[in-house]
């Protein structure tokens, strides 16, 4: 059963109150009427009992329903049910014993009191009094009968003057009334002592019957004028059926006393007869009252328990709801006692909790915004970021870290960093460095390390910063490109200065050497002339070499001014290679893919790239008489982006040991001749076009250089 509706609760309360009132009034009515021997409302007795019984039944039902509800609440472990039971038992233990004790003693008291009240020890005395009164009455009757005989005698002596005889006899026998009736009941003669007796009352049939059977009938008559002895006698020697009725007044004091004795005997006999019934009624009324008290005590106990427990129950339910996260619990503050104080404290607590929760929610939202912002920044950061806890376990990373380590670091969250090191030996130096710093407990640190990658050495700058929870945030910057750019800029500056500072004096030197040779040589002796000739020749040759070197540096240092337009790469390759077709030291092979897209590029610069690569192959294989050169064009698709590869392969000695990206820097060469700028210029041109220069050894021997250009690049 769910909770009772308010209207049902009110109906139950009203029914109980009504039943109580009915029971109370019924008991009061019975109590008020119990000792009475009759009343005008006696006919309502059954209804009163029925109402009382119904009221008791209603109260019992009300109590039963409450007990049933309490039992169910106990089974369901409803908050407050056990306290209600405890309180109920306590209150009943306090209330019932006095009531039951009072009941027991009251019953005993009723028994004793009624017995005392209706003590039977005076009954014999009353019976004796009654016997005396009867004897006196019989004497009165005997005297009356005797006087009536005198009347009859006088009537017999005067048969013609019956009326007069009655008048005479009335005074003689001191009768109140003398009447001579005919056989048919008519009045033959009448004598009365008072006018009130002038109207005779004929004897009843029963009296006449007794008269006829016994010849006389004597009885006591209570009339309005008092008590009288009535004597009926037949007339002697009269066969007509006439009879005399004589009324003799009973003395007043005797009449009154005899009536009192009769009333006392009556009352005593009635009381004796009614004693047990009276006790039963008294006990029944008392039982009603006790039942009222008991039921009332139970109902009051229920109500008190409910009043005491209800706030606690509400408090428990509200506390449970708060525990489940429903903080909007506001309890009514109905009392001003300790419970009221507790309720107010609870309400204040829930309000504080709501405020705190609101603040926490706002803070959490702010934190979440900050985290999303930080995550967004980190994800877009080119620097790799690792967050470690105090034990060196990975707590977070960004996309750049994934790119650096070449794996998804989210899979390593919560794992020690050493596990990541075991997974990627290439990055072991990073792991070792970080773990070492963690072990040292450094709060702020910075360290540069280099990783040996396949194509080049990767320069990394690691910076660590301690976190408040003793963890570390590691930021890793890849400075390889920066470093290379810095070096390229330095080389460009050197080349530019060389071109500017060295190239300018070379022409005067060469002109001076030639003038010296032209003017002095003819005038010198043969021996001196030969020396001068070799010297000037050497000067001119070296100046040419210097010019070549300076021009190369100038070319390298030249600012990129590309004239981009669609280039047919295959046609360009054919055009350049045609220049080398007649070179006996080269065996050219073309492997050109047809239907290539035309990249936008500077045609002259691409031509220079191809020349440099061919020349680089020739110089690298200078000791070979014939060098096989394979030039290949291919369209390459790399993750949805198209590239054009122009590769130059030779069957020479291959790349030098330890070849890496640094070999594309200026002045890195293994050749005796050469400026050391060829590959540097090729890489620079490749980068100016948004492409790259790659180098690798061929599996069948020799080296392969690849110029990779983007397709569709503006």
């Amino acid at each position: 059963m769910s909770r009772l509706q308010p209207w049902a609760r009110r109906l139950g309360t009203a029914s109980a109150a009504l039943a109580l009132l009915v029971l109370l009034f019924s008991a009061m009515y019975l109590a008020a009427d119990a000792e009475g021997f009759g009343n005008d409302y006696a006919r309502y007795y059954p209804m009163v009992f029925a109402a009382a019984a119904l009221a008791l039944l209603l109260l019992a039902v009300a109590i039963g329903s409450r007990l049933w509800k309490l039992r169910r609440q106990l089974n369901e472990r409803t908050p407050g049910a056990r306290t209600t039971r405890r309180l109920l038992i306590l209150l009943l233990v306090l209330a019932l014993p006095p009531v039951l004790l009072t009941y027991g003693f009251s019953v005993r008291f009723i028994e004793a009191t009624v017995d005392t009240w209706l003590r039977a020890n005076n009954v014999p005395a009353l019976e004796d009094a009654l016997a005396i009164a009867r004897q006196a009455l019989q004497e009165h009757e005997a005297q009356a009968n005797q006087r009536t005989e005198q009347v009859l005698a006088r009537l017999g002596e005067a048969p013609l003057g019956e009326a007069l005889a009655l008048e005479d006899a009335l005074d003689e026998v001191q009768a109140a009334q003398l009447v001579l009736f005919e056989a048919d009941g008519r009045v033959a003669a009448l004598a009365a002592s008072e006018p009130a007796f002038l109207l005779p009352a004929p004897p009843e049939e029963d009296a006449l019957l007794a008269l006829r059977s016994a010849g006389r009938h004597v009885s006591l008559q209570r009339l309005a004028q008092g008590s009288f002895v009535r004597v009926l006698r037949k007339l002697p020697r009269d066969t007509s059926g006439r009879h005399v009725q004589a009324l003799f007044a009973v003395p007043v004091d005797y009449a009154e006393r005899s009536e009192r004795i009769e009333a006392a005997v009556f009352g005593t006999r009635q009381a004796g007869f009614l004693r047990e019934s009276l006790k039963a009624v008294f006990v029944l009324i008392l039982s009603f009252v006790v039942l009222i008290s008991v039921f009332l005590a139970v109902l009051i106990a229920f109500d008190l328990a409910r009043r005491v427990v209800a706030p606690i129950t509400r408090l428990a339910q509200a506390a449970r709801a708060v525990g489940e996260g429903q903080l909007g619990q506001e309890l009514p503050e109905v009392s001003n006692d300790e419970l009221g104080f507790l309720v107010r404290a609870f309400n204040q607590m829930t309000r504080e909790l709501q405020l705190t929760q609101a603040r926490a929610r706002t803070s959490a939202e702010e934190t979440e915004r900050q985290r999303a912002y930080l995550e967004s920044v980190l994800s877009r950061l080119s620097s790799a970021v690792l967050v470690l806890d105090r034990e060196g376990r990975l707590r977070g990373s960004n996309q750049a870290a994934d790119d650096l380590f070449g794996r998804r670091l989210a899979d390593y969250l919560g794992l020690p960093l050493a596990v990541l090191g075991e997974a990627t030996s290439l990055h072991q130096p990073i792991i070792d460095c970080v773990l070492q710093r963690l072990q040292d407990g450094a709060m702020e640190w910075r360290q540069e390390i280099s990783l040996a990658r396949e194509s080049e050495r990767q320069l990394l700058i690691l910076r660590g910063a301690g976190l408040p929870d003793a963890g570390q945030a590691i930021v890793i910057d890849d400075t390889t490109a920066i470093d290379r750019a810095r070096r390229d800029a330095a080389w460009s500056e050197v080349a530019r200065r060389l071109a500017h500072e060295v190239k300018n004096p070379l022409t005067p030197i060469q002109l001076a050497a030639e003038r010296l040779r032209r003017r002095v040589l003819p005038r010198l002796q043969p021996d001196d002339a030969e020396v001068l000739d070799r010297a000037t020749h050497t000067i001119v040759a070296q100046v040419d070499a210097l010019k070549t070197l300076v021009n190369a540096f100038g070319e390298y240092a030249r600012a990129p001014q590309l004239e981009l337009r669609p280039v047919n790469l295959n046609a360009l390759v054919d055009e350049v290679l045609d220049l080398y077709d007649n070179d006996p030291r080269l065996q050219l092979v073309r492997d050109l893919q047809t239907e290539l897209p035309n990249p936008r590029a500077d045609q002259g610069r691409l031509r220079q790239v191809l020349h440099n690569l061919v020349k680089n192959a020739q110089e690298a294989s200078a000791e070979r008489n014939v060098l096989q050169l394979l030039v290949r064009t291919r369209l390459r698709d790399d993750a949805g982006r198209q590239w054009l590869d122009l590769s130059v392969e030779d069957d020479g000695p291959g790349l030098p040991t330890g070849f890496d990206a640094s070999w594309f820097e200026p002045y890195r060469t293994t050749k005796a001749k050469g400026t050391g700028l060829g590959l540097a210029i090729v890489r620079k041109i490749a980068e100016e076009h948004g492409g790259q220069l790659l180098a690798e050894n061929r599996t069948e021997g020799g080296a392969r250089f690849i110029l990779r250009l983007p397709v569709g690049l503006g």
Partner: protein
Amino acid sequence: MRALISRLVALCCSLALCLLGCSAATPERAEILHAQIGADGARETLEVEQHLRFSAIMLEALSNGIALHLRYELDGCDDPQAPRVVLTYSPLTDEYELQRVGAGESSQRRFARRSAMLAALRRVRLPVTAGSRDCADNVRVSFDLAALPTPLRLPALIDRADWALQSAPFALLEANTP
């Protein structure tokens, strides 16, 4: 005390049963054999021939000065002065009295012996309110518990075996019916 409690419990239990059945007839103890309303001039009387059997406790109550009331209810008439017979005992004269009450009148008959009074009760003539002959259909006689002294009412109400006396309704005969 225990006997008293058990008696009270029995009393309460039988009270409900009694309340349900206290209006039931007891034909074995009260039966109207003949009834009619006759006219004596302007005066109407109810003549009833009946068979009544009083219980021993009723007669004991009578001997102890408790009046026994018999009510004669005329169905169809709303008469507040329903005819009654009241039986009483006078200890001084040691006589029994049969009082007939109705229509504002009252008359008594005295008997030296109780059996005579009960025999006389077999056939009674009671004054009734004028016009009763026209409105009454049935008549029934019942012992009036409400007229008992208060302490006796509840036991009488409960103890039907001793105190219930009620006839079934008897259809009134026409006055000229033999």
